[in-house]
């Protein structure tokens, strides 16, 4: 009971805060299911259901009734707290403090039914949603998994409707799907139901026979496996190449931003994820890459007027050299001290670029414009759809280098430094060389990303290189999974791509970042897509078997 009350209070406070910061109202413009449930309501629903689930999970006693009672209580408290907000809002002018506590919000919270009925509905909403998730907790794991997946799938489809609509639009008869699923704003009811059933069927099938399929795949003869691998990577290549054509202009723009962040993330992943050197000034190398290209190519300054390709090597070399130069003074620093020193470095670069002193060379606050677009022969990389291929090539290169390095002598040396610097040195690793190489490689990737960024925008401004970029990159690595290469991609899509798609998020970006980070640390500290090795920890229960077996063997 106590657990239910406690968790319910936490959930309720979160709901009230979400309402007061304006997220609920801002999100209610977009419907998940047309005219049935808006994104704002979904937000409240998800928090309530999660609270109920947590309350059920944390119950000390295993009797189903107690579990259910706990989740029910937590839901009642959520409903109660929201009602309190509504009552308070009707009596006091909350808007003086919370500018988002508008009449519209209260209308929304009371389901447009006036205070009396609204409060009743709120209480019902809270108890119903949380006790539903209590039931979910009690149901057998197969059913639970399938239901959670389908619900999440429907919510995701509603959330990403713009993306899906754009994907299906150009395909003639297939475009009819759009009419069926999401004609204007949100999923249709029949669309939502059929999607739910579809996902449920797929995940049921996967749960039932997924592992069987995996083992039978593994049992295939090596030649067949190879054919399979080649086909799948071929398919992936085709998808990657066709992606901007499928997605159209706006989404390709989003894609290029994600791609630039993937490139940055891959670089920082080497520094932070592999070598464990917490670098908060990473944006500096991005700026150095961008400004090198700008200075060398822009006719506005008229120094060299090189082409993009002529300037690119200089940009990368400048990045690598500045990576080493930053590395030298911070070689002896560890942990927090390193973070602060690198943070300073990032700011120094930004302020230098902004300074009047360097204005004749770097353009000061006005930046540098008229940076030519890259071109091969007569083909110019002008639109996002074309720039995409340049970024894709950069990401593939950086990903390949990271992947090769990870399982090599150098990658192991970095990880050893990350784990225990002193012992790494006692194992024959030259700390100076290992750290500088990590800084240099990371900075090189970052400079490459900056170079493409400059020529994509056609101009560079100091304010594009604020410390927030460094923080963003660090966040996406943490959310994706430290040291994991696919994790960088997943993290970039989740933290850079999604907010671009959901414009409502823009205002709450930092709030969502913070919440996502806290949630990640509690629920999934290893990241969304952790390294295979780290995933092993999740299956620790399997360990004792092997242990006892080999223990018997070593007993001689």
């Amino acid at each position, binding site marked *: 009971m106590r657990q239910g009350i406690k968790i319910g209070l936490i959930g309720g406070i979160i709901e009230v805060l979400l309402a007061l910061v304006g997220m609920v109202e801002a999100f209610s413009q977009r419907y998940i299911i047309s005219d049935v449930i808006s994104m704002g309501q979904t937000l409240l629903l998800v928090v309530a259901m999660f609270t109920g689930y947590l309350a059920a999970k944390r119950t000390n006693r295993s009797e189903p009734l107690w579990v259910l009672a706990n989740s029910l209580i937590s839901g009642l408290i959520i409903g109660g707290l929201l009602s309190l907000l509504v009552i308070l809002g009707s009596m006091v002018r909350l808007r003086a403090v919370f500018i988002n506590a508008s009449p519209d919000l209260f209308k929304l919270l009371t389901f447009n039914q006036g205070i009396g009925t609204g409060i009743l509905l709120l209480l019902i909403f809270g108890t119903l949603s949380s006790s539903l998730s209590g039931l979910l907790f009690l149901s057998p794991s197969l059913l639970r998994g399938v239901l959670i997946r389908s619900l999440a799938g429907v919510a995701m489809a509603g959330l990403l409707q713009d993306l899906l609509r754009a994907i299906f639009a150009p395909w003639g008869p297939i475009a009819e799907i759009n009419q069926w699923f999401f004609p204007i704003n949100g999923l249709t009811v029949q669309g939502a139901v059929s999607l739910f059933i579809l996902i449920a069927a797929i995940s049921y099938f996967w749960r039932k026979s997924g592992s069987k399929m995996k083992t039978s795949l593994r049992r295939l003869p090596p030649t067949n496996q190879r054919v399979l691998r080649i086909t799948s990577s071929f398919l992936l290549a085709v998808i990657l190449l066709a992606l901007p054509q499928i997605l159209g202009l706006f989404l390709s723009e989003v894609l290029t931003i994600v791609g630039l962040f993937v490139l940055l993330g891959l670089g920082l992943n080497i520094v932070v994820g592999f070598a464990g050197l917490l670098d908060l000034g990473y944006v500096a190398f991005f700026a150095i890459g961008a400004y090198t290209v700008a200075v060398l190519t822009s006719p506005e300054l008229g120094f060299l007027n090189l082409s993009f390709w002529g300037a690119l090597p200089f940009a990368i070399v400048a990045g690598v050299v500045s990576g080493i130069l930053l590395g030298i003074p911070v070689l002896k620093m560890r942990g927090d001290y390193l973070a602060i020193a690198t943070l300073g470095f990032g700011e120094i670069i930004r302020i230098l670029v902004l300074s009047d002193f360097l204005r004749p060379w770097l353009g000061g606050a006005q930046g540098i414009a008229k940076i030519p677009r890259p071109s091969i022969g007569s083909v110019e990389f002008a639109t996002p759809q074309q720039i995409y291929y340049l970024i894709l090539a950069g990401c593939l290169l950086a990903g390949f280098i990271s992947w*090769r390095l990870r399982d090599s002598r150098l990658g192991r040396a970095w990880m050893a430094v990350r784990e225990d610097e002193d012992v790494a040195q006692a*194992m024959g690793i030259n700390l100076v060389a290992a750290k500088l190489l990590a800084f240099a490689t990371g900075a090189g990737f970052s400079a490459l990303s900056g170079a493409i960024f400059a020529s994509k925008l056609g101009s560079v401004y100091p304010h594009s290189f604020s410390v927030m970029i460094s923080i963003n990159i660090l966040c996406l690595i943490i959310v994706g999974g430290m040291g994991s290469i696919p994790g960088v991609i997943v993290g970039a899509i989740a933290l850079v791509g999604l907010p671009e798609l959901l414009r409502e998020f823009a205002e709450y970006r930092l709030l969502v970042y913070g919440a996502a980070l806290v949630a990640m640390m509690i629920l999934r500290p290893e990241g969304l897509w952790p390294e295979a090795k780290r995933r*092993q920890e999740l299956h620790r229960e399997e360990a004792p078997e092997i242990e006892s077996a080999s223990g018997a*063997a070593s007993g001689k």
Partner: protein
Amino acid sequence: MAILTARKATKRFGGLVALDELDLEVREHAIHSVIGPNGAGKTTFFNCVTGFYRPEAGEILLDGHSLVGLLPDQIVRLGISRTYQNIRLFPNLTAKENVLVGLHSHLRAGFVGIVLGWPATRQEEKEASEEAQNLLRFVNLSAKDDFLAKNLPYGDQRRLEIARALANRPKLLLLDEPTAGMNPRETQEMMDFIRHLRDELGITILLIEHQMKVVMGISETVTVLDYGEKIAEGTPAEIQNNPQVIEAYLGRRSEVQARSASG
């Protein structure tokens, strides 16, 4: 012939003299123990030999070459490797990766070779992988090569640390309390294992040990330190009957008697 020689090695921490003009010689192929009460300077001596600390005065020589002033990574390349009193594995790397890190200084692969996947690099990596697997087999851990080091049980971690130290291909292996926290059976196994290391691989072994049974059971020479000074040296039998050693460990006879009388 002495493989390791310390001459008047001195290390101070502020006013505390941790090593006081220590003279010590370790013969090649010996199993040599260093014992002494807590704070006698045993681990400080290990840290001076492996380059973690730099002695203020005196010299430490390996095969006649001075080690003073070299960095730990340079010393390990000369053929000295060590384990730690409180196990210091790389916790988030697998057992095999831990051993592969130990092989670091014997591999040549550079950045370009790795990225381009040159045949020589691949060949080297394959050989390193085999050598690591052999070392894991040697310490009875080949079945757990993909376990994260931190998930291994205590005894396995001790043995993995030794395997990692062996991957450095040392001439001289420094073991800092290898049997700490082990039960009698594990201790006996560790003793056999240490002897095996010396006999099979021809590695000279210098160890710090607290368990007298181990010290007396496997060492050929025992050096006793107290307050950073060498107070005795000899075969285990000689040490056991040395009055100074007994005094260092138990206090002076008169004191003991006085204490027991008053107590």
